C-alpha cells in the first residue's frame, strides 16, 4: 500500500478516535445536547418539581409530546420554573391545559403530564401554563398523616 494511503487511513483512524471521545464527553456525560427536534417552548411554574430532571418526557394521555429543557428557580416567587419543548407535531394542545408532575417506574422517574383544557386556542411559543400540580413528595404526605394521627 502506498505511503499516501497509509497516512490517509491513519488520519481517518485518529479522527474517528477523537470523534468518539467527543461523543463520550458531550453526548454520554451530557455537557450539551447535539440534536434538537423542531418544536416550541412553553413554561410552567411548580411549587415543587421533586426529582424532575432536564430531558424528562412531557406527555399527554400517555403519549410523549415533548421534553423538559430547563429547570430553574424563579427568584421572585421562589417557585421552580420548568421550560418545556413541545414537538411541532403536537401543535393543537389547548392553551388552558394543566401540567402536573407524575412518577413512573419504581425508581421514581418523574415526568410532566399535560391534561387538556377546553379552550379552542392552542398553546403557542412562549406561553405559560398557569394551572400546575406539584410533584408528590412522599415524606410530606407521611408527615401529614402522622400529624393527623396525633390529633
Amino acid at each position, binding site marked *: 500500500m502506498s*505511503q499516501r494511503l*497509509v*497516512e490517509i*487511513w*491513519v488520519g*481517518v*483512524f*485518529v479522527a*474517528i*478516535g*477523537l*470523534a*468518539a*471521545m467527543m*461523543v*463520550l*464527553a458531550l*453526548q*454520554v*456525560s*451530557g*455537557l450539551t445536547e447535539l440534536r434538537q427536534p423542531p418544536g416550541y417552548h412553553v413554561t410552567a411554574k411548580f411549587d415543587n418539581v421533586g426529582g424532575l*430532571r*432536564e*430531558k*424528562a*418526557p412531557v406527555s399527554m394521555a400517555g403519549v*410523549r409530546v415533548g*421534553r423538559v429543557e430547563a429547570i430553574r428557580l424563579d427568584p421572585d416567587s421562589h417557585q421552580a420554573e420548568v421550560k418545556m419543548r413541545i414537538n411541532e407535531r403536537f401543535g393543537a394542545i389547548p392553551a388552558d391545559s394543566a401540567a402536573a408532575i407524575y412518577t*413512573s*417506574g*419504581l*425508581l421514581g*422517574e418523574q415526568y410532566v403530564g399535560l391534561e387538556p383544557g377546553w379552550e379552542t386556542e392552542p398553546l403557542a411559543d412562549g406561553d405559560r401554563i398557569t394551572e400546575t400540580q406539584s410533584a408528590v413528595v412522599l415524606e410530606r404526605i407521611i408527615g401529614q398523616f402522622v400529624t393527623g394521627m396525633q390529633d
Partner: protein
Amino acid sequence: MTGLFQALGQRTLNGLRGLGEAVLLMGRILRAAPEVVVRPRLLVEQIYAVGVLSLVIILVSALFVGMVLGLQGYYTLSDFGATEAVGTMVALSLVRELGPVVTALLFAGRAGSSLTAEVGLMKATEQLSSMEMMAVDPERRILAPRFFAALLAVPLLAAVFSAVGVFGGYLVAVGMVGVDGGAFWSNMQNAVTIQDDILNGVIKSVVFGFLVGWIALHKGYMAVPTSSGVSRATTLGVVHASLAVLGLDFLLTALMFD
C-alpha cells in the same frame, strides 16, 4: 526435597531476570522516543498496522457488547420497573470497565500477537543483528515506533469501543424493547461525569496500551530464535498481556472509584 526448592528458586530467579530485562528494554525504548518525533513516518506506519487494522474487530465487538448489555440490562431492570436506568447501566459499564479492558484484550490478541511474531521473526532471521551491523539501532527503528503506536492506538480504540457500545445499547433498549429515548439519554447524562468516569477510562486505556505494547515487544525481542520459540513467545505474549490487563484493571478500579 532439595530438588523442589531448587526448581522453585530457579523459577523465581528466571521470573526476576525476565522482569529485569523487560524493565531495561522499556528504559531503552523510552530513551529512543526522540526517534519517533524525528521520523514520524515510522510511527504512522505502525499506527496503521496496530490501530487502523484493529478497527473492524473493535467496532463489531463493541456493537454486540453494547447490544447484549442493553438487552440484559433491560431484562434485569424491568423486574424492578426501572428500565429507564438501562442507559446509565450501559454507559457506566462501558466507559469505566468494558471499553478499556475489552479493547486491551482484543488489542493484545489482534495487534500484540502480530507485534511479538514480527519482532521475534526479525530476531530469528537475524534481521535485528544485521541492522546492528549496519549501525542502525533496532530499538530506535523497530521497537520504539511500535511501542508508541500501541500507546496511542489503545486509548483511541477504547473511546471508539465505548461510543459504539453505547450506540448498540441504545439500538436495543430504545429501538427494540421500547425504553423511552429521552429517559435513556437523560439518566445516562446525569450519572456519567467527565472527570470521574470518562477521564478515568482514558487513563486506564493509556495504562493498558503501555502494558500490552511493552509485553508484546519484550516477548518478541527476547524470543528464542527458532520457529517454535517465536510461536511460544507469541502465545505467552497474549496470555501475559491479557492477565496483566485484568489484574491491573482490578487495582486501577480499586484506586479510582472509591
